[in-house]
């Protein structure tokens, strides 16, 4: 087997490889279920079909996909520019802390200004957390990968310290949780009877804006050049440092906003020691699965959100351990990376093709 470089990027494989990756993941998943001694078809149905065969199920899918898409859209800008922010979970947490902090500060008050203020605080919190790796990378050349990740651990511990300590609800019998935010600090529900909240709509708007910026503006072009060939970016006069700042601040801000949407929405209007099932990390998979393209990320977010819903559902319906979700997500990314080779290369078998002879 040999790889032969294509003359042009294969558009067919560019979008075909994620689909292929999803199919391969399903096949491998079925095999995994068999090995574990479960009925593969019942398990796959419990995982991928029954969670979304109702309106409520679909709305839950959107609720789960929303933070993934919001974060992944920000991360994709950086990944394209060769900036590896993998600490979105930390920025999400800081956004929740900052936004939630505002809600707690004005606890007991009502007013239409509270929610926007919380959003600004959340974006600021996420940006501040992402500014640390940005600063260290630009000024000292320190790897943003390791710094952003270490800060994710720190952020989770900080949230825990607050929820167990100074921010603990004095009326909650020593449970590690804060007070419940006042009504004005909760995200409005846009589809009655579901948990579909305003944040989902904001996510869609952000995706469309990001798509426009990435494909139609000089900024998007600069991002691509900086990522693909740093020396060429210098030649063109595009500043790499600026890209590091912009992409880290953008992804940090969006992750922070996603964190606030969680605590002011599905989590139920309070801070808890755990507010996210690892959305910040899973969004990395979503970004790649969506080809670092905002519209693709929207689709990919739905697919990956299904693995969360499916994991919960399969645990109830067929008793699968919930850890299967993580395995599915990992496998999905692996298969994607493996099939991605087809975008730039052709796989050939046997002797080299003789052309022009």
């Amino acid at each position: 087997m040999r790889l032969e470089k294509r003359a042009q990027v294969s558009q067919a494989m560019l979008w075909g490889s994620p689909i292929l990756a999803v199919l391969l993941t399903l096949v491998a998943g079925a095999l995994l279920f068999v090995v574990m001694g479960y009925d593969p078809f019942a398990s796959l149905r419990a995982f991928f079909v029954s969670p979304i065969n109702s309106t409520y199920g679909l709305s839950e899918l959107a609720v789960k996909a929303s933070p993934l898409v919001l974060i992944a859209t920000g991360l994709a800008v950086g990944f394209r520019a060769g900036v590896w922010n993998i600490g979105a979970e930390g920025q999400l947490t800081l956004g929740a802390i900052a936004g939630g902090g505002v809600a707690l500060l004005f606890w007991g008050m009502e007013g239409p200004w509270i929610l926007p203020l919380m959003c600004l605080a959340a974006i600021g919190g996420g940006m501040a957390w992402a500014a640390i790796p940005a600063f260290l990378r630009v000024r000292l050349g320190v790897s943003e990968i390791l710094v952003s990740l270490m800060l994710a651990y720190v952020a989770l511990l900080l949230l825990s310290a607050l929820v167990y300590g100074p921010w603990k609800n004095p009326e909650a019998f020593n449970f590690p949780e804060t007070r419940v935010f006042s009504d004005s600090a909760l995200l409005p529900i846009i589809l009655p009877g579901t948990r579909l909240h305003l944040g989902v709509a904001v996510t869609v708007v952000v995706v469309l804006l990001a798509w426009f910026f990435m494909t139609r503006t000089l900024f998007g072009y600069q991002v691509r050049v900086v990522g693909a060939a740093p020396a060429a970016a210098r030649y063109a006069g595009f500043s790499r440092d600026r890209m590091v700042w912009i992409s880290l601040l953008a992804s940090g801000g969006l992750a922070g906003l996603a964190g606030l949407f969680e605590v002011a929405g599905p989590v139920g209007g309070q801070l808890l020691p755990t507010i996210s099932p690892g959305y910040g990390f899973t969004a990395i998979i979503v970004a790649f699965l969506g080809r670092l393209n905002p519209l693709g990320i929207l689709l990919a977010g739905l697919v990956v959100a299904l693995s969360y819903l499916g994991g919960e559902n399969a645990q109830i319906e067929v008793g699968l351990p919930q850890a299967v979700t993580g395995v599915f997500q990992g496998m999905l990314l692996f298969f994607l990376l493996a099939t991605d080779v087809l975008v730039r290369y052709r796989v050939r078998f046997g002797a080299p093709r003789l052309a022009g002879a």
Partner: protein
Amino acid sequence: MDTPRLELDGITKRFPGVVANDGVSFKVAPGEIHALLGENGAGKSTLVKMIYGVLQPDAGRIRWEGKGVRVLSPHFARRLGIGMVFQHFSLFEALSVEENVALGLEGDIPRRELGERIREVSRDYGLPLDPKRHVHSLSVGERQRIEIVRCLLQNPRLLIMDEPTSVLTPQEVERLFLTLRQLAGEGCSILYISHKLHELKALCHAATVLRGGRVVGTCDPARETAASMANLMVGTDLAAPARPERRLARKPVLEVEGLSLRSDDPFGTHLADVRLEVRQGEVLGIAGVAGNGQAELLAVLAGERPVDANTIRLDGKPIGRMGTRERRRLGLCYIPEERNGHAAVPDLSLADNALLSAIDRKGLAPRGLLKGGAAKRYAEEVIRDFGVKANGTAALASSLSGGNLQKFVCGREILQAPRVLVAAQPTWGVDAGAAVTIHKALLRLAEEGVAVLVLSQDLDELLALTDRLVVINGGRLSRPLVTAEATTEEIGLLMGGLHDTTGAGGTAGRAADAA
């Protein structure tokens, strides 16, 4: 007659889309210095890689001292007694001379013994080297010595040298020839690859000429004229573009004064008090051995490395602090040495690559919004005007051959109608046809009144192209010479570091003197 040391019989090698070698046959006798002559892209490198076992032929036979062999790997070649000095040295910057030599040898020789043998060989063949030094601290000439010593330690009976002189000063070339003649005298065969005709006449006993992957002739270089060999090599009369008579001394467009700079690269060369002016309608050349501050100077001229505002002026306006984009808006365009990843983004299409440097001068992104159609049309214009062979504007830059991508890059800069064009090694590694296209375009630009600066290690190119010439050595520039009056020897001495301006010659600029 003696058994030939090496005999090739009908060697053929195909790559997807091209036949690199087609039925190549020739013989090399013991002790013979045999030239392999051909322009870039004629298939010389592919051929010797097969002899050295890096590649395998699709058809044909290799006979080594009369016996048929299949050279499966470089290891195997070395065991046979074949050594090779690559054009792009296969050296490891962070490792010592000794370690670099060890990596090219078969078997594990104890370090101490190896050091001893390196000293021995370098003494016997006039190739002074310190085994403990690290490669990054060595000059290009010294680096080549490592490659040669590495080969000689194996007592080779065939030494392959791939364009060994392209990076040497004329004096270093003379010294290398002495070593090679000594080796041949001891019975070692040498396969000498070059397209420099006067070198072949001076050194080689026989020559095989390749064109388009086929052998088109064999000759005795001593009996041929340079012109007859050139015709054999190129096939048609690719007349070098005639340089029109031009008046000197016109208005300076680009001026550099009092430029000193510490290199960012720990292995780089600092610039010391560089003074330079490029005048309207002239081609100014910068000659010099690689690694003498060219990279630093280019970065400063292009704006990739901003400096004090007043050290660089364009039409009298201080531009030293400006970045590349601002300078380009004022009319300073730049063709960098490296096509892949510097002048062009390999993984982007040609349309996207047209955008890279033409955004402002061609108005391709007004108010930050891309005009995709206009970028595509500009790419089409470049492809058409410069005869770029490409599969449309959607083709990836990486899918083009070196010559075609270089034509695209040059065209992209030239069609922007610059005030000043800085071109680094504009024809490095491109075929003769593309080189002529590029040379003609540069000369035409100068005729139109553009100030053109060409930096090259190829002295022949500079002699053919330029009106005036300066030499860079150790981060300093010599005084300008009028090309028509300069001699090769004079230029060679300047390249070797014998400076006329400051008296602080040698490699003093290297890391030692700060800005």
